[in-house]
């Protein structure tokens, strides 16, 4: 650790899993997702995994909901943690 908490190597955010901060979990409906990549573009963390359909990397997702807000086909719903059957 460097004095003053200076970080001299890039990529430190990858090492810190922030998924435990989440209150609401984004769930992507694979039938609706058109893989347009807008959610990937807007996500402030590296938490959207591109694919057909896209999926969420719950190790990093803080549950901010920007992806759900931006999704043009309303394929993403935010569900309160603990209230849903689906496990990440």
């Amino acid at each position, binding site marked *: *650790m*460097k*004095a*003053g*908490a*200076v*970080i*001299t190597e890039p990529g*430190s955010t990858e090492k810190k899993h922030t998924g435990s901060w989440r209150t609401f979990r984004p769930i992507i409906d694979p039938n609706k997702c058109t893989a347009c990549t807008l959610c990937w573009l807007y996500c402030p963390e590296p938490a959207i995994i591109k694919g057909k359909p896209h999926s969420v990397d719950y190790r990093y997702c803080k549950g901010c909901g920007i992806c759900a807000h931006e999704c043009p086909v309303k394929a993403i719903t935010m569900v309160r943690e603990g209230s849903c059957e689906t496990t990440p």
Partner: protein
Amino acid sequence: MKQLLDGNEAAALAAKLARVKVISAYPITPQTTVVEHLADFVANGELDAEFMKVESEHSAMSACIGAAATGVRTFTATSSQGLMLMSEMLFVASGLRLPIVMTNANRSLSAPLSIWCDQQDSMAVRDSGWVQLYCENNQEILDTTLQAFKIAEEMLLPVMVCYDGYILSHTAEPVDVLEQAEVDEFLPPYKYPYPLDPENPVTMGPVGVPEYYMEFRYMLQKAMRASQKEIVKVGKEFKKKFGRGDGLVERYHSDDAKIILLTIGSLSSSAKDIVDRYRKRGEKIGLVRVRSFRPFPVGELIDAIGHAKAVAVVEKDVSLGSAGGLFLDAAASFINVEPAPLMLNFICGLAGRDVSPLQIREAVREAAKAAESGKVKHAVKWLGLREKLVGLEK
């Protein structure tokens, strides 16, 4: 060369001699002329530096933090309410380990509004991770400010040089001003290890999650403790080169003293006069002046006052709801140490009230009484208090 300088001129000259590259400061009484002198130096071309005008002390310290992060020598100055407004950023500066040097012309705090001297302002930010050095006279302001850069840059810690408002800031004394070449030799350009540089990007000020924060605080604390050695080392080097300089504490006729006055700042000069008078009469009274209040020199203090029967801590500040700041740290130094001297605290001179020789004699008398009886009647006493005004008259 000797020049007639007030304390603010000495502080400004020291910053100029240190060849600071960025100054960001906001004028506040009684520090104002430091800012004025530095602005003049820059405007006249005497000092090659960026003078950043800002709208507040919070911004002044923020600008200094940004400047210091690029690796340049950075300076600011303030007083009282300005220091309070800065206080949020003081912790950021030390947490980021940026070697900023600041002079603080000590002034009391509102309310009631007061522009006069005491040390409540800097004492209030003693926990901010800044090294705090207190000066006794104008020569020491110049010398200590120069030393401060060296200490700061070696330890990666910000350093606050404190001196009494008006009593020093506005009073002229002969000050030996070092030649530029001498200062350049003592204080060469420095290299900050992780400067902000687009070619080598770094992250500064990241989140300190619970898994890391304690370790960074521990590192800061360790650096603060270790800076004691650096203060002594730099003081010795300065003394060797220029014939002046002190370490963590100054001892004045204290080695064989049974009663010791423990002081800080310019008050020490007046108290030394009183010590001289007692000594002339053959009475073993001494004085110890704390120069480094942060880090607090526990070991050195035990060595300097541990042999006394009673110690009178005379200071111009109070931790409201407790006692004087110097007294608290001095008393805490003797926890688990035996034998320990009896300790008495005298609060005086708040908001520029004159500390008279009579008051200092009273402190000595009380300490002598305690030494004789082995008992302390009042641990904390306010000297020169107008008791009639606060309804304490018997």
